[in-house]
């Protein structure tokens, strides 16, 4: 059977570096059951017979923190065959404090004193033999970073585990009377605990450790007898039992290190490098600007419009996974003879888009004219082979335009007349300079123009540079070649591959965020972030580190939720995960941009208002959650080490980032992929499993199902299948809300998608609204729809990582329910109160909205729960 070696030590002792060095690529990262504390397993040097298990970094085996309880439980119940205790040689006093506790467990132990390279550089000397003798274990000096001695120490632990030899007797670190009391306790519990760990249990009982006393089932009478001994010690030493144990441990260590360590005189009086860095980065005046600068750097790297993260994401989605991409620096003007000769690729695409829309609009107009007066059976469905010249000559498609992808409105005219460029250079709007720049570009298409437009073929990207086809395009081409039917092709390409592409599309941004976070964590700055921001955030129940996920969240909620991992305290971490996605992310910004263009042209502040609502929800939600039963209780102590700064290694950062990415792809991908395929499926098929496609979305299962749940949305003003379908499909990716709206609104009157959507919201206005207010209420409904979609649970990918980071299904559902509640109440309040102001009377739902708001206010402002009784 494989032997298990537990890797235990303080945070920042170099445990992770050693674990990575020992296990290489054979590691597995997960959560301990039911909690979000990280659990890492790996094979020692790839040997399947030796498993290394990394315990959370801990300072003690007290029952108070989650990490410590998890570690205790593992050490006592799972019984590893040996412990490899890693100790920071530059900070040995506090590190040995944990070692004295580990030694009492009676598990064979090897101590690895890490960072020996730094110890030597400092000129300090450590007497390993003396420490080993005092603690009853073998001690070796290592440097995990320089790959010195770590493997040897681990192999020593492995052979110790295999030999099954009894560990040396646990050190007696306590004074006479305490040892006496411990001996009494040992006598009482003999036979009830594994004999090798009896000393550990006895000391815990002496400390009155509630968990151990409960687990061992020590009765009141029995405890009363033991209490006598404990009280005698407390009286004699004038302190409580827990303090006696801690004090005496540290005294023992102080004596030991006084003899075993020779500190170089030179170092004692010199300010360390860390201290000098801290003088700047935690400086009263400079700290906040430096922090903001660090955030800006991450923002730019990961999610800024022209930053590397966005460029990589666009490349991944549109290029690598989509149609294809040009190899950088090979692009050139079109060299092939033909209509596009001398053009850049983008310009050629623009020209083709115009020709294409001219062609299809004219064809529409022709069909309409040709079908005039014909009975239903004889009507033309598509363009005939032979165009009736006589009819064609009279057909003119008027007001043709190219739609803007985001807003669905006609794109503005671009021109480069000299006057215009002069105005532009002066930084002013070029409207009104006489050449029509900036105004919607509309044109008419007659038969001659149609014939000309029909001659244009889509530009071939390989004429403009070295073109690499994307995976999506390759799959499409392969399916075409194989000659499969339309339904199968759609299933494979849009459904299955679409699901995979959704999962993979987030990889670049997650990668960059974690590369940066790993750097901040590994170098030691992250602890300073908590130090600097703690004051501000703890008021609403969050940690100083919660700021980072929220800033990342402005760009994308998925890495934001995952970034919460840097928060040690589980309660703070869960709260941050629930709240971080309320900040409107990049995809939600697309919704805001569209609605701002369609409905809120005069209300320029609407986008900023959404950010303000997001921040308000985070602050008030934090306050409310903190007072709720789920998060109530004693405030977690904020007693935190500020580790020495050091330069992180590339390998360390890379591994850190890679484990996160792998976790995302394997674990979150397993939820996202089927969910994406399912949503795609109900959008594209009807209940008879016929492919209906984009144009037939009104016949899709989504539309039917939307009709079933529409009544739920009635109090928000858009309780129709269109409103429901758009909101549900937005769970694939938030910007899908606008695309679906465009599709479901297509049968409304109007010439552009924008006009369709405006009319759709117009049709939602209830009858009680007087004629003069109809336009205002349509806007109000649009606002309600937008707010609902921004503040309900984020897209599926973000929900999947939320479930993963919350550590349990119950917590995941709690997060989703909370977010759904917030989004619903916000939208309902806006709509119902707006309706009241616009002349509809005080109805049932007005009352419901007021009650819901009062409930929220009560949740925020009610007195805090009393801290759990101690």
């Amino acid at each position, binding site marked *: 059977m494989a032997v298990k070696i537990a890797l235990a030590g303080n945070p920042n002792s170099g445990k992770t570096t050693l674990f990575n060095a020992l296990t290489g690529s054979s590691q597995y990262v997960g959560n301990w059951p039911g909690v979000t504390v990280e659990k890492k397993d790996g094979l020692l040097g790839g040997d399947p017979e030796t498993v290394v298990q990394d315990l959370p970094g801990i300072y003690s085996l007290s029952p108070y923190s989650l990490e410590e309880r998890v570690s205790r439980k593992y050490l006592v119940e799972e019984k590893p065959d040996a412990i490899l205790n890693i100790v920071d040689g530059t900070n040995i006093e506090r590190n040995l404090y944990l070692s004295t506790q580990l030694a009492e467990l009676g598990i064979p132990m090897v101590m690895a004193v890490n960072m020996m390279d730094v110890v030597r550089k400092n000129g300090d000397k450590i007497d390993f033999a003396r420490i080993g003798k005092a603690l009853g274990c073998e001690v070796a000096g290592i440097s995990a970073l320089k790959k010195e001695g770590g493997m040897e120490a681990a192999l020593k632990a492995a052979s110790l585990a295999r030999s099954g030899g009894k560990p040396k007797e646990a050190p007696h670190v306590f004074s006479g009377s305490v040892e006496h009391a411990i001996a009494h306790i040992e006598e009482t519990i003999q036979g009830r605990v594994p004999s090798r760990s009896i000393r550990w249990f006895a000391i815990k009982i002496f400390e009155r450790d509630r968990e151990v006393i409960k687990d061992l089932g020590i009765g009141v009478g029995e405890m009363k007898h033991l209490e006598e001994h404990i009280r005698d010690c407390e009286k004699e030493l004038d302190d*409580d039992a827990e303090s006696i144990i801690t004090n005496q441990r540290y005294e023992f260590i102080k004596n030991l290190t006084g003899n075993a360590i020779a500190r170089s005189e030179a170092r004692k009086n010199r300010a360390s490098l*860390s201290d000098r860095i801290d003088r700047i980065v935690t400086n009263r005046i400079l700290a906040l600007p430096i922090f903001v600068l660090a955030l800006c750097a991450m923002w730019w790297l990961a999610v800024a419009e022209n930053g590397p993260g966005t460029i990589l994401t666009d490349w991944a989605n549109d290029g690598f996974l989509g149609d294809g991409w040009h190899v950088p620096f090979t692009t050139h003007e079109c060299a092939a003879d033909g209509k596009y000769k001398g053009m850049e690729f983008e310009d050629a695409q623009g020209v083709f888009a115009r020709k294409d829309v001219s062609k299809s609009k004219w064809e529409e107009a022709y069909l309409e004219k040709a079908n005039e007066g014909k009975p239903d059976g004889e009507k033309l469905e598509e363009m005939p082979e032979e165009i009736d010249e006589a009819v064609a000559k009279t057909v003119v498609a008027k007001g043709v335009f190219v739609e803007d992808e985001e807003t669905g409105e006609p794109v503005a005219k671009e021109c480069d007349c000299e006057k215009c460029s002069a105005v532009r250079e002066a930084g002013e709007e070029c409207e009104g300079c006489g050449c029509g720049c900036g105004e919607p570009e509309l044109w008419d298409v007659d038969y001659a123009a149609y014939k000309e437009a029909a001659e244009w073929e889509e530009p071939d990207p390989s004429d403009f540079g070295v073109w690499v086809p994307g995976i999506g395009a390759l799959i499409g081409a392969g399916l075409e070649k194989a000659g499969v039917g339309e339904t199968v092709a759609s299933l494979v390409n849009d459904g299955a591959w679409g699901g995979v592409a959704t999962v993979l599309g987030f990889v670049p941004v997650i990668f960059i965020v974690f590369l940066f976070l790993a750097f901040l964590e590994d170098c030691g700055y992250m602890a300073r972030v908590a130090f600097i921001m703690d004051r501000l955030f703890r008021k609403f129940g969050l940690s100083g580190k919660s700021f980072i996920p929220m800033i990342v969240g402005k760009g994308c909620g998925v890495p934001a939720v995952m970034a919460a991992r840097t928060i040690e305290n589980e309660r703070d971490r869960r709260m941050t995960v629930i709240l971080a996605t309320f900040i409107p992310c990049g995809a939600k910004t697309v919704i805001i941009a569209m609605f701002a263009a369609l409905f809120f042209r005069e209300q320029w502040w609407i986008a900023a208002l959404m950010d303000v609502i997001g921040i308000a929800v985070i602050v008030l939600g934090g306050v409310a959650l903190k007072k709720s039963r789920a998060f109530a209780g004693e405030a977690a102590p904020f007693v935190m080490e500020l580790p020495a700064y050091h330069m992180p290694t590339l390998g360390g950062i890379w591994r850190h980032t890679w484990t996160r990415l792998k976790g995302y792809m394997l674990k979150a991908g397993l939820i996202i992929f089927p969910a994406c395929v399912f949503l795609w499926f109900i959008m594209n098929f009807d209940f008879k499993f016929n492919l209906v496609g984009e144009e037939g979305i009104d016949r899709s299962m989504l539309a039917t199902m939307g009709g079933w749940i529409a009544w739920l949305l009635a109090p928000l003003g858009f309780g129709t299948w269109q409103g429901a379908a758009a909101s549900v499909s937005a769970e694939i990716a938030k910007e899908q809300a606008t695309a679906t709206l465009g599709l479901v609104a297509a049968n409304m009157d109007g010439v552009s998608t924008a006009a369709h959507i405006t009319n759709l919201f117009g049709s939602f206005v209830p009858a009680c609204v007087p004629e003069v207010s109809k336009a205002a209420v349509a806007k109000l409904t649009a606002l309600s729809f937008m707010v609902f979609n921004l503040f309900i649970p984020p897209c599926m990918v973000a929900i999947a990582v939320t479930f993963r980071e919350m550590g349990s299904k119950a917590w995941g559902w709690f997060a989703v329910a909370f977010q759904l509640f917030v989004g619903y109440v916000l939208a309902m309040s806006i709509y119902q109160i707006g309706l009241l102001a616009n002349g509809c009377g005080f109805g049932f739902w007005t009352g419901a909205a007021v009650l819901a708001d009062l409930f929220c206010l009560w949740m925020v402002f009610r007195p805090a729960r009393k801290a759990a009784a101690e």
Partner: protein
Amino acid sequence: MTLAEMRPGSAAKVARLRGEGAVKRRIMDMGITKGTEIAVRRVAPLGDPVEVTVRGYELSLRKDEAAKIEMEG
């Protein structure tokens, strides 16, 4: 005098720890026990928490927690 009242740059020994439960245990686990010398390094830009040096390493704690640590002298 408590640790919360000490000025940055000053140092003193711990006389007594008040309170009980998780916070007190955590403070002790981090090496702040009776007789330990603590030097106050600096206060965070927003006025809380404080950074101290204890047993040769840097530790930050909130003023609420520092107020539970009584110092000698």
